[in-house]
């Protein structure tokens, strides 16, 4: 459902059902959307509870963020959600800040996803939902550090992993994805599902993890 009726964020189509405007979620543009279509479990399990505070690392131009906002906050943030979006590129933040001016509860942060100290004060309590899509070397380390610091016990973490951003081990993509799943498990996270996004976003996997007693701070 569109939180800002009458506006299309990235050229997606708008449609009215029963007097309410909905936006088409393009799975080829949003890895979160692709994951929801491809998951074997309940697609809703990938989304945070409406009205909670969530953290999004590597927000990009705000395609996924806009849909997440519709779900989390609703029109004029009537559901009272908070969506903290971090990205490093000023060009991306330009689009995000433009979106944020119409969407209370959307908090854009121009910063490095690894430097928690610089923007961590904007996340006063641990979050039940965390998404990361940074596509750079060491993305697993970044994800683990973020989960440790920001993800509440029992919270859902989603890691979108781009195979080409990791060091090529010569054993193929499947081996790489398995190694990542193992590392996540060793860090105390429960890997709920590894979702293959081939077709929507090639050479990408979406790791759905649950924070099972990583730390109970």
């Amino acid at each position: 459902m569109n939180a800002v009726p009458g506006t299309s964020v990235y050229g997606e189509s708008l449609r009215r059902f029963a007097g309410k405007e909905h936006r088409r979620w393009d799975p080829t543009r949003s890895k979160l959307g692709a994951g929801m279509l491809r998951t074997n479990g309940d697609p809703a399990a990938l989304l945070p509870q409406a009205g909670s505070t969530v953290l999004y690392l590597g927000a990009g131009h705000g395609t996924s963020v806009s849909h997440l906002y519709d779900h989390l906050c609703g029109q004029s943030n009537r559901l009272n959600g908070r969506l903290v979006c971090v990205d490093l590129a000023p060009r991306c933040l330009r689009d995000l800040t433009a979106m944020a001016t119409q969407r209370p509860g959307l908090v854009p942060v121009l910063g490095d996803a690894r430097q928690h100290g610089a923007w961590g004060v904007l996340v006063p309590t641990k979050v039940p939902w965390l998404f990361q899509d940074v596509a750079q070397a060491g993305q697993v380390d970044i994800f683990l550090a973020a989960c440790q610091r920001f993800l509440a016990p029992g919270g859902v973490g989603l890691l979108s992993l781009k195979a080409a951003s990791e060091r090529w081990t010569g054993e193929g993509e499947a081996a790489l994805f398995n190694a990542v799943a193992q590392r996540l498990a060793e860090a105390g996270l429960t890997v709920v599902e590894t979702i293959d996004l081939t077709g929507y976003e090639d050479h990408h996997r979406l790791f759905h993890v649950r924070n099972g007693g990583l730390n109970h701070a």
Partner: protein
Amino acid sequence: MWLWYDWRAAAVVDDQGHLVDVIEWDGHMTEHAVVERLRTVARGALIPEAQALAARFPEAKALVHGEPELPATSYPLPSYEQQQLADQAALRLAVEGVQAAASDPDRRLEHLVRGSDELRAHHLTMEARLIEWVGLFFPMTVATDRQAYVRATAQCATSVEFAETMEVEVPPVLPSEVEWRSIQEWAENTANANARLDRMENALRWLAGEHLPSVSALVGPLLAARLCVEAHGRARLARLPSGTVQILGAEKAFFHHLKTGAPSPKHGHIFMHPWISRSPRWVRGKIARMLAGKISIAAKIDAFEGEPWGEAEVAKVEERVEALREANKQPPSRR
């Protein structure tokens, strides 16, 4: 002992997780003040409350909210209204950060260089079409000075007037009035594009002179700007090996060389410089290699904001160019 702080409060915590002392910000919370505080925290500096506590408890280790080392306890976190204020401030901070990106001359140079390239290509095709078009009706006119020819076309309201201006007979087949109007407007646009290109290159020269004073002094601002854009920024240009600077812009030939063993390119964009393009073919590679080395030095001076090169340094480089030309007057004999 730890000194915990966020953007609005600070607390000292002992090893058992008891709050020993707390100071909360009691000032008037304006958006501007919160922005300043978020900026302070992002810098890694202490907010005033934390500074006051640090003076009272010098042994406490200062850590920002959320650091894993901090003991778990109930810290004085912001209220709902305060958090909303912080969100607004964060938005302001993000907008300021985005606006600060406009001060990056690398990005501005890129638009100027690529834009003037596009404009030049556009201008040349328009000019060529105009001359062909007018020449169709007036085969006796000769466009020796192409710019003057374009201007003359733009200024003549009718085709007969054009024939008079160019001092040729009025040919039997003439364009209709509306057709001549199209030709004339096309000519106006062409002349405009030319004037715009001049202005754009002036802007480019000025910005390159500011951003890359030494490289501009050495090889001219237009070439300096192009090298900077091709290297993806001044900082990267300064870090590139001079062998790469030498062949920037000749990537196609270079990778062809790597793939097939064809002769390697000796120069990329720096070929535009008359020291290379006006030298005999067999010394170009030598001059290009030397000049690329000098450009690398100049780029490092610019990137680390040292004393820019002036005429004296450029004159020394020119001496080297002359020496290279002098030492290689004859083409190498082929055996």
